[in-house]
């Protein structure tokens, strides 16, 4: 068979430097004695879309011997690509979907994720299954270099394209020597040192057959610090729970104590223990106490609801100050000033007042108007300045008054109602009880988000009798919950409820 070109496809997103990489490959190929051709279809794809850059390298020697120029293709053909470089994990999947991966191809892919808009806008978790891509590409590609090049890029301070270029050099998938790659970067003349560093980092990572570092464990158990006396009894109570529930219960009680105090933690465990007993009576042991585990999780979230005190508390913590410095990449000692975007509404302010008082205010048009004029607009609270910090710190320290507020009473009543409903179906339908427990997932956030979630939650619970008499109650409830997370206007949920026979509210 006569000589054939080396065919290289670069799958990248607009702005990832796919064009730079393709240009480098062309130049490195020319240095190493190849006739190079590359093309792309940039256009609007440059603006965040997915783009394929395609390079063919043909040995110049073969062309000289033949005395003719090769006819090179302008796009990859399915099953006929030697090297696929994917600048993101889903783009490696796209290469497979387009048929570019085969037993003869080498896949060089960065495993980091850049989420597509469709994944980001979901009201719950809309992320696609990256594990499936990892598994499928590993089977489809003849060889695979698979590591987080974005991290290598960040660590080396170089662009992702330099790291990918290094990985290509290390792959040995082309006969181009390392020196030709490096010379190409030097000849480019822009950011040479940084790019060479990134190239070397990519080369080394790929050459050492880099394996993903294990994700840092969220709760390292390096030293042994005993619980403080005030919470030790709570820990003892958690330890008395069935083993499979303990981790979740401990996380839960910790969150609740952090929200309020140990007494609130005790209330959490009282509630949980009751559920655990009923769970056991309903044969929960055989089901690994699934219900207790669900309740342990969602009860904690329900009890540690988001109010003004909680937000002020979280915003003023020393750990949060350390975190935002890290998030904005401040260097040691750099001055960082922070402003919060807050928009207090009368509802949130009233949450703190005793129920009768807050009810009276909410009914009074005048009070609403005055509040709206004075406080009810967006504010930037400067948390790192003294006035801002002291304001928030004062709010945070009102924790002791929380139990007197109207919101507290409302939340506890709702939680008790939720638990009662779980109990009421438990004996009949264990799976349905678990789904009711999971319904708490809908209630989250502040302001409109919170109200919307609460409304969906209410609508579904109101239809509980109808759901219980449906052919598969648990599955029906699960579906309704999914529908509630489909759109902001509740259209999908209303449609699903209507199908079930619920009359639309006037």
């Amino acid at each position, binding site marked *: 068979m006569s000589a054939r070109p080396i065919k290289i496809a670069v799958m990248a997103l607009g702005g990832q430097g796919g064009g730079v990489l393709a240009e480098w490959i062309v130049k490195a190929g020319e240095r190493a004695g190849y006739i190079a051709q590359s093309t792309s279809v940039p256009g609007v794809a440059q603006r965040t879309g997915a783009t394929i850059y395609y390079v063919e390298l043909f040995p110049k020697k073969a062309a000289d011997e033949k005395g003719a120029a090769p006819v090179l293709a302008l796009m990859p053909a399915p099953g006929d690509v030697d090297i696929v470089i994917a600048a993101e994990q889903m783009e490696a999947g796209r290469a497979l979907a387009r048929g570019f991966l085969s037993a003869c191809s080498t896949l060089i892919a960065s495993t980091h994720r850049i989420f597509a808009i469709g994944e980001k806008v979901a009201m719950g978790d809309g992320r696609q299954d990256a594990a499936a891509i990892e598994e499928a590409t590993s*089977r489809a590609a003849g060889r695979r270099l698979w590591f987080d090049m974005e991290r290598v890029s960040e660590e080396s301070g170089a662009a992702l394209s330099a790291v990918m270029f290094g990985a290509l050099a290390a792959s040995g998938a082309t006969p181009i020597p390392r020196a030709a790659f490096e010379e190409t970067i030097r000849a480019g003349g822009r950011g040479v040192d940084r790019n060479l560093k990134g190239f070397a980092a990519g080369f080394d990572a790929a050459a050492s057959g880099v394996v993903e570092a294990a994700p840092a464990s969220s709760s390292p158990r390096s030293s042994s610090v005993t619980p403080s006396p005030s919470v030790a009894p709570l820990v003892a109570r958690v330890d008395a729970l069935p083993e499979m529930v303990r981790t979740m219960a401990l996380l839960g009680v910790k969150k609740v104590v952090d929200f309020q*105090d140990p007494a609130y933690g005790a209330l959490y465990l009282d509630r949980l223990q009751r559920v655990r007993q009923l769970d056991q009576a309903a044969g929960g042991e055989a089901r690994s106490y699934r219900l207790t585990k669900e309740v342990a999780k969602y009860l*904690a979230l329900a009890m540690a609801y988001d109010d003004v005190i909680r937000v002020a508390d979280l915003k003023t913590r020393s750990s949060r100050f350390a975190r*935002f410095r890290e998030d904005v990449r*401040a260097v040691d000692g750099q001055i960082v000033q922070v402003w919060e975007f807050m928009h207090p509404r009368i509802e949130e302010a009233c949450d703190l007042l005793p129920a009768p008082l807050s009810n009276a205010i909410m009914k009074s048009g005048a009070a609403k108007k005055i509040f709206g004029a004075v406080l009810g607009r967006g504010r930037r609270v400067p948390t790192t300045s003294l006035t801002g910090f002291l304001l928030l710190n004062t709010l945070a320290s009102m924790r002791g008054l929380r139990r007197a507020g109207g919101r507290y009473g409302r939340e506890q009543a709702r939680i008790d109602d939720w638990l009662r409903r779980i109990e009421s179906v438990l004996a009949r339908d264990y799976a349905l009880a678990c789904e009711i427990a999971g319904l708490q997932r809908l209630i989250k*956030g*502040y302001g409109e988000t919170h109200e919307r979630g609460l409304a969906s939650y209410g609508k579904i619970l109101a239809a509980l009798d109808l759901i219980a008499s449906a052919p598969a109650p648990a599955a029906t409830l699960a579906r309704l919950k999914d529908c509630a997370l489909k759109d902001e206007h509740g259209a999908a949920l209303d449609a699903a409820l209507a199908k079930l026979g619920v009359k639309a509210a006037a």
Partner: protein
Amino acid sequence: MAERSFAEEVEDLKLGAGEIFRGEGILAVTKALLQSGVSYVGGYQGAPISHLMDVLSDAQDILASLGVHFEASASEASAAAMLAASVNYPLRGAVTWKSTVGTNVASDALANVSSSGVKGGALIIVGEDYGEGSSIMQERSHAFAMKSQMWLLDPRPNLESIVAMVERGFELSEASNTPVMLELRIRACHVYGSFVAKDNVRPVFGLKDAMEHPERDYSRVVLPPSNFVHEVEKIDKRWPAAVDYVRKHRLNEFLGAATGDVGVIVQGGLYNTLNRALELAGLSDAFGDAKIPIYCLNVTYPLIDDEIKGFCLDKKAVLLVEEGQPEYLEQAVNAILRKGDIQAKVVGKDVLPRAGEYTSGVLLAGVRKFIENHAPALAQKGEPAAPAVDDAAKGVAAIVPARPAGFCTGCPERPVFSAMKLVEKEIGKFHVSCDIGCHLFSILPPFDIGNTTMGYGLGWAGASAFGADAGQRTVAVMGDGGFWHNGLTSGVGNAVFNKSNNVLVIIDNGYSAATGGQDILSSRAANKSKSTNNPIAAAVRGVGVKWVQEVHTYDIGKMKRALKDAMTTTLKGPKVIIAQAECMLNRQRREKPLRDKAIREGKRVVRARYGVDPDTCTGDHSCIRLSGCPSLTIKDNPDPLRDDPVAYVNNDCVGCGVCGENAHAAVLCPSFYRAELVYNPSSLDKAAAGLRAAIISFFQRGADKRRQRYSFGDAA
């Protein structure tokens, strides 16, 4: 200034005879124009030919030294009308645009120049925006060539062929007194390759000569009786002259085997893809030594009847590889063979798809089917007719998310649409007529705003039917690019004249941003060769709009109020909001190096960016649905009790503040924060920060101590 600088590429335009030019296809065309002694070049930017415009724009000095006049035309119509210079004078001229959209706009002038005929060579370089990467309706420029009887070149997609066809194109135009279109597909425009350069040529007869010695010839004017004469002339003189030239100079090529029972007729631009398909079918090699004869049409209009008859005479069947529809070539070849009583079967759209791009995979399947049916002896043993789509690939295709194009990080257009969404919540839904430009991304998620787009600058005209006395007004969107292209007359003037009550939002970001950030009339930057700083508001008021508001886009609250005002005011007449803020891509390109330099030099610099607190973010993603900024993304929820990923601002953030403004305007949640990082702080900065830190950490230590009392140790 354009998004990309072509300072280096401009140097390549100076290459002399024998030197090797290396670069993109569309830049090779630029060089070929100079080698052909062109006197004037015009055009309108747009993928995939923007770089041709950009490089000429950066090459003013070279153009001046060669006596070439270059215009960044106001529209494709302006560009096409430029060709009038070649009607009376022996001046070579070239114009360029994105096709078919640009050809649509240009077609009035094109039809006129085609009727008049040309004395000097007139070349129209069209970037055929078809198939993958295209952003427009899928049509063929071929129809324009046929209807006006201009000749259409479709060269093989390598730089040598493209350059040769530019040079031949001028000669063909002069030999047949007809404008010639040169069609380049997207990939051919961007293909990197090389060719041996020639010296640039300064025209013997220049623009100056024509202006100082004007000539007129009534027979060239498209008015009776000349217009009737022109039609006859096209058939009797120009067509035969073109056929003679094409045949004599062998613009079409006979490639592959000399003889065979079957053969392929292919558009030149598809030749490389065809050869790859033949290679994969075992019928050719990397040098194009195909086992079957190939007739390669570098000229797809007019067809050369004798060449086609000759090629088909001894064949049982020919495969016609013609991309797009209708299948004009297939119909024409069938007619030629039928009239010539030649029995070769023409196989085209029966084995190849009627619509869509002819990719390697598509052509391979078509070639295999053709060979199986008409030359089974040549078929590879045991090969499937089409490459099998793997189950794994199918499964993965369902997972891989779509990546629609969207607004860039920090784009100033995003807050306009956020505001629109917020206004919609207050006053109910309204009809939105869109235009062409970056702002059209509003049609895609997460904004999902907009009903139709009728063409560049036609955003407001697209809503002009809605003149009823209704309870809700319509909103039209137009970019500054579209506004100057024709929107000022087709949209604004039209609305004033017809007493519209509706609303127009003009996005004034200072550039023709979608096509690569070229300057336009209202650009704020100073431009040596162009007149900028002509405000849109003055133009709008000048044609009679009374209600005009200029609003800074990033102020979402103000934008919201302006929109609501425009939608609800009792004032009669058209309302125009000019939403102003510089394109962030261009702004960053200008400001970032300056900022980095200032930091390096030890000057005090404050840089803003935004963040989200993961422990107050509950993973509802309302903020993303209102914004869609690429730097506003998601990550795992650090709280193991919570299910949904939290919002997160990555390090690409440019600190535009739209996410925070949205959180405010929409009353979302308190998770967003604005951070200001101080570089090279003054001693006052340091003292104040030290004092603040001391007091804050005093309180924080107290709170830490309290939490310590409730510590679970490492039990959790």
